[in-house]
């Protein structure tokens, strides 16, 4: 019993001895500033997944789809390819305005023509700037069937 008590005290002392004052670092002030995520530019669709399965090669015409994004507005390069703002379940629109759900840490993009709002989720995080890849996840017809469009810039 006495040995156990001695061993416990020795280990506790050793642990206290191992602790030291934390090092201090200089933090760049601009690192603490939140930047609005920038996706402006022309995005080109390069792969399509339906419920996780890659169907890009099955629908080759869609891979030419361009998505022109400018400050607050968007334009699709064609209204003849599958995109959630098109189709016949609503009044289709190939241009309009868009907005992040959060300008600094976005998880979704909402496309709208002023009347209808189409919500797409971001499949991968975006950087504040210099994004070269963007993935959108959404449903088009049957709500249980999901699509992921991967764009490149």
């Amino acid at each position, binding site marked *: 019993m006495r040995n156990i008590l001695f061993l416990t005290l020795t280990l506790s002392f050793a642990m206290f001895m191992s602790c030291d004052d934390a090092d201090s670092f200089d933090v760049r002030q601009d690192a603490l500033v939140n930047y609005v995520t920038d996706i402006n530019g022309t995005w080109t669709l390069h792969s*399509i997944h*339906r*419920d996780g399965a890659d*169907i890009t090669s*099955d*629908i080759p*015409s*869609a891979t030419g789809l361009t998505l022109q994004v400018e400050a607050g507005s968007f334009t699709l390069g064609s*209204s*003849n*390819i*599958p995109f959630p703002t*098109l*189709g*016949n*379940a609503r009044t*289709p629109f190939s241009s309009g305005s868009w907005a992040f759900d959060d300008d600094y840490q976005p998880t979704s993009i909402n496309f709208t023509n002023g009347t209808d709002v189409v919500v797409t989720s971001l499949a991968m995080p975006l950087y504040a700037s210099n994004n070269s890849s963007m993935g959108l996840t959404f449903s*088009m*017809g*049957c*709500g*249980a*069937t*999901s*699509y992921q469009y991967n764009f490149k810039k």
Partner: protein
Amino acid sequence: MRRFNFNYKTFIFGFLALPLVFLFVTSCLEIKSVDQADSARAGSSQTITLNVLLDTENNDQNYKRLVVGICAPKDWKVGENAVVTFDSPLNNEPRVGNGTMILDDGAQDKGYKKGRGADGNQNGLTWAENAEEILGYDENYGEMEWVMYYSDQVDAGNTSVEGTVSINLSIGSAHSAAKLGYWVGVHDNGFKMADHVAESTTTGAPSRWYDYEWKKMAILSASADATDLTGPAPTFTATVNAGAEGYTFDDIITVNFDAKEGYLGDNTALYNAGEVFMCATALLGDGTTVAKVDRAPESKMTLTGADYWSKTIWPPAYFGVNDQIITEIHLNFQNADGSIVVKNPGYGTDMVFGEKCQ
């Protein structure tokens, strides 16, 4: 405020013409109403009542036999299970206007068992064959049959009477819905139709000596593989899918054609074909159609398995539809020159697909 102008001349003319309209558009027999449940449990017994008007139109209607037809799924075995009775105020004994009706066995060994077609003459067909040819199966795609019953002779006299026909059926479990058909006529006129009387001042429809009604019934607790007879005919030759949970025609859909799934397990005529083209027709919400049946290059399918062909499309773009809802897609499959056409084996019709989203 707009004032209503009452034109009494028009009213009087219309009032006088009304009996003429009825004369030429009503039938000698009329089903006034059908008392049938909209749904019934599989395995249950159901009674359906037809309320029937018998109008003799002052012709010699004595000693007629009432004939009743029932169109129901074949697996219900109506001929074996149903009991059909009729009742009316007629009671000119010994020819009373009520009793149990007799199943027509199709033997045509008596005059009243010989079916009469649209001209009112015996045409060598049974009553059931005439019903199939003239009335068909309405929205049902074919797993149906007409079963006919006739009564003992009835002395109808020269009067109009209202009677009832009661049909007791056993509901089968192989279908989740069916549109049941009911026909009433008399044995010496059958399916007789007469042209509109040219001398009349009305523009009435042709007269007919019979009447019929269709009424849909949903089957509850049908078996797991039950089909809906009022929907598209089932097929194993083609499939349409998108995700695991189904699709609408706004989805990117994949059409698959299995050339090995022909009639009764045989291969289709496109087995071992070098090329297969998808010939598709879209039915739109306004009832119009858009056909892509010209075997254009974009309709060429891709071989994705052993005699298994696939084509992935986005229907709005494929059919060029941007202001209409697509409600159905009808498919057949052809070789390059169109000399071989594969439709739904066993039905001979295009394979029909509607939206299917859980």
